[in-house]
C-alpha cells in the first residue's frame, strides 16, 4: 500500500543531489551559499532514506512479503516492456539499511573532513548521487534498472576519485577506475542481452527471470553466469580487474570510505547474491567465483603486507575481504556473504575514517613510517582503530570474527579444503598487516614529537564512535547457534534464500579455534616485528611484493600500450588516410559538384529555356509511354 515509498528511498538522495548541484552552481556563479546549507541538505537525505528503509524493515519482520512498486513504463520496444520498477525483499532491504546507515555516518564524517574544501557543495552533490545510484542498484526490480544504478555508481566513483582534479595523477586514477569498471560492465551488458534473448519475452524482472531460467540450456546459463561475474569482478575489484582499487585512494578519504564500505565494491557481491537463482543452477561457475575470491583475498593480503601508504594498505585489505565475500557467495552461502558485507561495512568505514583522521591530523601525511606515536595524541581515534583492527582480524567478539568464521565454515563444509586453507592463510596475513599498521602508526617511536597536529573536528570523531560501537555489536546479530546465539542474519536472509549448513558441532568448534589461532599468530608476528617500532630506520621496500607483483606494469605493457598503439595507428593512419579521405573527399566532391552545377545557373535565359525544353521533352516522352 505504501509501496511508492520504495521509490522515495532512491528519489530522496537523487533529488537532494540535484538540488545540491544546482545550489552549488548558483553558489559559485551568483552568491556564495554558506556551507551549513549544503551540510543540512546533504546529510538529511541518507537518514530520511534510512527511516523509510527501516519502516519497510519493520513491515517485513516475521513474514515473507516482497514489496514491489512499478513507477512507470520506462521503455516499450517491440514487445519488451521495461518498467521503472522497485523491489524490496529481505536481501535488498538489508542492504538498504546498512548502506544508508553507514553512508549517512560517512556523510557526517565528510562534512568535517571537507570543511575547508572550496568544492564543498559539489562534493555532497556527488556523494548523494553516489548513494542514490547505489540504492537504485539495490532496489531495482530488473537487471536493466539495476544497470542504471550500476553505471551511476561507476560514474560517481569516477567523479569522486578524480575529485582533486588539479593533479593529473588523480584524474588518471579516476580514468583507471572508470575504464576497469567499463571492462566489467561489458560483461554485464553481454549477460543482460543474453538473458533478454533467452528469457526476456515475458517480463524482465527478477521474479520472471527466476521462473524463466529453468528452461534455459545449461551452457547458456554458464555463459550468462560467467559474463555477469565479469561485471562483478570489475565492480568489486577482484583478480584481474582490481588495479583500479588501490589507485582509487587518490580521492578524499571519505570517498574511499564510501566506496569501500557502503557502496560500489559491495555491488558485485550483491549482484551475485541477487542472481542466486542463476548461480544455484550452475555450481561450476560458483566454484570459479569462489576460487577467484580466494586468490584475490590471498593476493591482496600478500601485497598489503609490504605497503607503506596507509590508505593503500586499507584498499588491499578491502580487496582481500571482498575475496572472502566471493568465497561465500560462490559456494552458495549467500546469507554468509551478505553478512560479511554488512560487518565489513562497519569496520572498513571505521578504518578509513580513522585513517582519514590521522591523515588530517598529520597534515595529509599518508606514509605510515612517518607517523608513529599517535596513540597518546589521538586516543579516541586509536581506540576506534583498535576496535576496527580487531574486528577485521577476526578476534572474538568483534564483528569480523563471526562473519569470517562463517565464511570459512562454508568453505570447509562444502569440501573445498584448498579455498579453506587459503582463507586461513589470508586470515593470518590480515592479522599481520592490520596490526603492523596499527602498531606502526600508533605505537611507533616518533621523532617529530614537536610537530603540531591539525585539529580533528567533532563531526569526524562522532561517526568514529558510532561505528566503533557498531563494529563491536554488528557481529552479534549473526552469532552462530553453537555459541548460543540464533544467527539473526541467517534466519532473516534464510527466508529469502536458504543456505543453511550442517556441520558437526565439534568440527565447528575446531574450525573456530583455528580461525582465532590464525588471527593470534598474525597479531603476534606483527607484535614482534613492529611493536614500538623505531622510526629512525624507515624500511626500504623492494622486491616483487612491494611492486605489487608488477601487475600494473604487466597491464601497462601488454594491454595499455597495445591499445595505445592501436589508437595511435587508427588516429594517425586510418583516420587521416582513410576516414578523412572519405569525409573530406565527400565534402570536396560536394563543393566541386556545387561549382559545376552552379554553372547551370548562369543567368542565361535561353539556357534556362533550353533546359525547360529538355524537361518538357522527358515528361512528354514518359506520358506518351504511359498513356496508351
Amino acid at each position: 500500500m505504501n509501496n511508492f515509498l520504495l521509490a522515495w528511498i532512491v528519489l530522496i538522495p537523487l533529488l537532494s543531489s540535484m538540488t545540491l548541484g544546482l545550489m552549488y552552481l548558483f553558489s559559485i556563479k551568483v552568491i556564495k551559499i554558506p556551507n551549513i546549507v549544503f551540510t543540512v541538505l546533504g546529510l538529511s537525505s541518507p537518514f530520511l532514506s534510512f527511516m523509510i528503509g527501516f519502516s519497510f524493515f519493520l513491515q517485513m519482520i516475521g513474514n515473507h512479503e516482497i514489496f514491489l512498486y512499478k513507477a512507470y513504463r520506462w521503455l516499450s520496444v517491440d514487445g519488451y516492456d521495461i518498467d521503472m520498477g522497485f523491489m524490496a525483499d529481505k536481501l535488498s532491504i538489508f542492504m538498504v539499511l546498512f548502506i544508508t546507515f553507514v553512508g549517512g555516518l560517512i556523510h557526517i564524517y565528510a562534512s568535517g573532513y571537507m570543511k575547508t574544501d572550496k568544492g564543498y557543495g559539489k562534493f555532497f552533490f556527488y556523494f548523494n548521487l553516489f548513494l542514490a545510484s547505489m540504492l537504485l542498484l539495490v532496489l531495482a526490480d530488473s537487471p536493466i534498472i539495476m544497470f542504471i544504478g550500476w553505471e551511476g555508481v561507476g560514474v560517481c566513483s569516477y567523479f569522486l576519485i578524480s575529485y582533486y582534479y588539479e593533479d593529473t595523477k588523480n584524474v588518471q586514477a579516476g580514468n583507471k577506475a572508470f575504464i576497469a569498471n567499463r571492462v566489467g560492465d561489458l560483461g554485464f551488458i553481454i549477460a543482460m542481452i543474453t538473458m533478454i534473448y533467452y528469457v526476456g519475452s515475458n517480463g524482465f524482472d527478477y521474479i520472471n527471470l527466476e521462473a524463466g531460467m529453468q528452461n534455459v540450456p545449461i551452457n547458456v546459463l554458464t555463459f550468462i553466469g560467467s559474463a555477469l561475474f565479469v561485471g562483478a569482478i570489475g565492480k568489486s575489484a577482484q583478480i584481474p580487474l582490481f588495479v583500479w582499487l588501490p589507485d582509487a585512494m587518490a580521492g578524499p578519504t571519505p570517498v574511499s570510505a564510501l566506496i569501500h564500505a557502503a557502496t560500489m565494491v559491495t555491488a558485485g557481491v550483491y549482484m551475485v547474491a541477487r542472481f542466486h537463482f542463476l548461480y544455484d543452477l550452475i555450481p561450476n561457475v560458483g566454484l570459479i567465483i569462489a576460487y577467484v575470491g580466494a586468490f584475490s583475498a590471498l593476493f591482496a593480503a600478500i601485497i598489503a603486507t609490504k605497503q607503506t601508504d596507509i590508505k593503500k594498505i586499507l584498499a588491499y585489505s578491502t580487496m582481500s575481504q571482498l575475496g572472502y565475500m566471493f568465497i561465500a557467495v560462490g559456494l552458495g552461502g549467500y546469507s554468509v556473504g551478505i553478512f560479511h558485507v554488512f560487518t565489513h561495512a562497519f569496520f572498513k568505514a571505521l578504518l578509513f575514517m580513522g585513517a582519514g583522521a590521522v591523515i588530517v591530523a598529520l597534515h595529509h601525511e599518508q606514509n605510515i613510517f612517518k607517523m608513529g606515536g599517535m596513540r597518546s595524541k589521538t586516543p579516541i581515534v586509536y581506540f576506534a582503530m583498535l576496535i576496527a583492527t580487531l574486528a577485521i582480524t577476526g578476534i572474538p567478539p568483534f564483528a569480523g570474527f563471526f562473519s569470517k568464521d562463517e565464511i570459512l565454515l562454508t568453505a570447509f563444509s562444502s569440501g573445498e579444503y584448498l579455498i579453506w586453507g587459503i582463507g586461513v592463510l589470508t586470515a593470518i596475513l590480515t592479522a599481520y598487516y592490520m596490526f603492523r599498521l596499527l602498531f606502526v602508526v600508533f605505537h611507533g617511536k616518533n621523532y617529530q614529537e614537536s610537530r603540531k597536529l591539525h585539529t580533528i573536528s567533532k563531526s569526524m570523531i562522532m561517526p568514529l564512535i558510532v561505528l566503533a560501537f557498531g563494529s563491536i555489536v554488528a557481529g552479534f546479530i549473526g552469532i552462530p547457534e553453537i555459541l548460543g546465539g540464533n544467527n539473526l542474519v541467517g534466519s532473516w536472509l534464510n527466508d529469502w534464500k536458504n543456505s543453511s549448513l550442517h556441520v558437526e558441532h565439534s568440527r565447528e568448534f575446531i574450525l573456530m579455534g583455528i580461525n582465532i589461532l590464525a588471527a593470534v599468530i598474525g597479531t603476534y608476528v606483527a607484535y614482534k616485528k613492529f611493536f614500538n617500532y623505531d622510526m629512525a630506520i624507515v624500511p626500504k621496500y623492494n622486491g616483487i611484493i612491494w611492486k605489487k607483483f608488477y601487475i600494473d606494469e604487466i597491464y601497462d605493457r601488454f594491454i595499455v600500450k597495445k591499445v595505445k598503439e592501436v589508437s595511435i595507428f587508427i588516429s594517425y593512419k586510418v583516420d587521416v588516410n582513410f576516414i578523412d579521405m572519405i569525409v573530406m573527399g565527400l565534402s570536396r566532391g560536394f563543393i566541386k559538384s556545387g561549382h559545376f552545377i552552379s554553372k547551370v545557373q548562369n543567368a542565361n535565359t535561353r539556357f534556362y529555356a533550353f533546359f525547360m525544353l529538355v524537361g518538357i521533352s522527358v515528361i512528354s516522352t514518359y506520358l506518351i509511354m504511359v498513356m496508351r
Partner: protein
Amino acid sequence: MADSLLSYIALAMILFSIGFLGVISRKNIFIVYMSIELMLNAINLIFISLGRYYETMVPQVMAMIIIAIAAAEAAVFLSLIVVLYRRKKSLDSDIFTVLSQKDAHE
C-alpha cells in the same frame, strides 16, 4: 483537311515549336520577342479552333484578351529594348544579366 480540328492544332503546334526554337536559339533580343509573339499567336489559334469546334464564343474573347495583353507587352518590351540598347549598345540577350545574382557569388 480544313474541317478537321487536328490539322489546325498541328499548325498551331508547329508555329508554337518554331516560336520556342526562336527563343532558345536566337540571341537577338528582337527575335526573342517576336518568337514570343508567335507562340502567343499559336495559342490563340488553338483557342479559336477549339471555339469553332465547340461552337462557342468564349475562346474568341480569350484570344481577344491575349491580343490586348500582347499589345501591352509590346509597349513595355520595346521600351525596355530601347533602354537596354542605349546602355549596352548590343542586342545580345545573353548580356542582360543584371538581375541575376551571378555576380554576387563570384
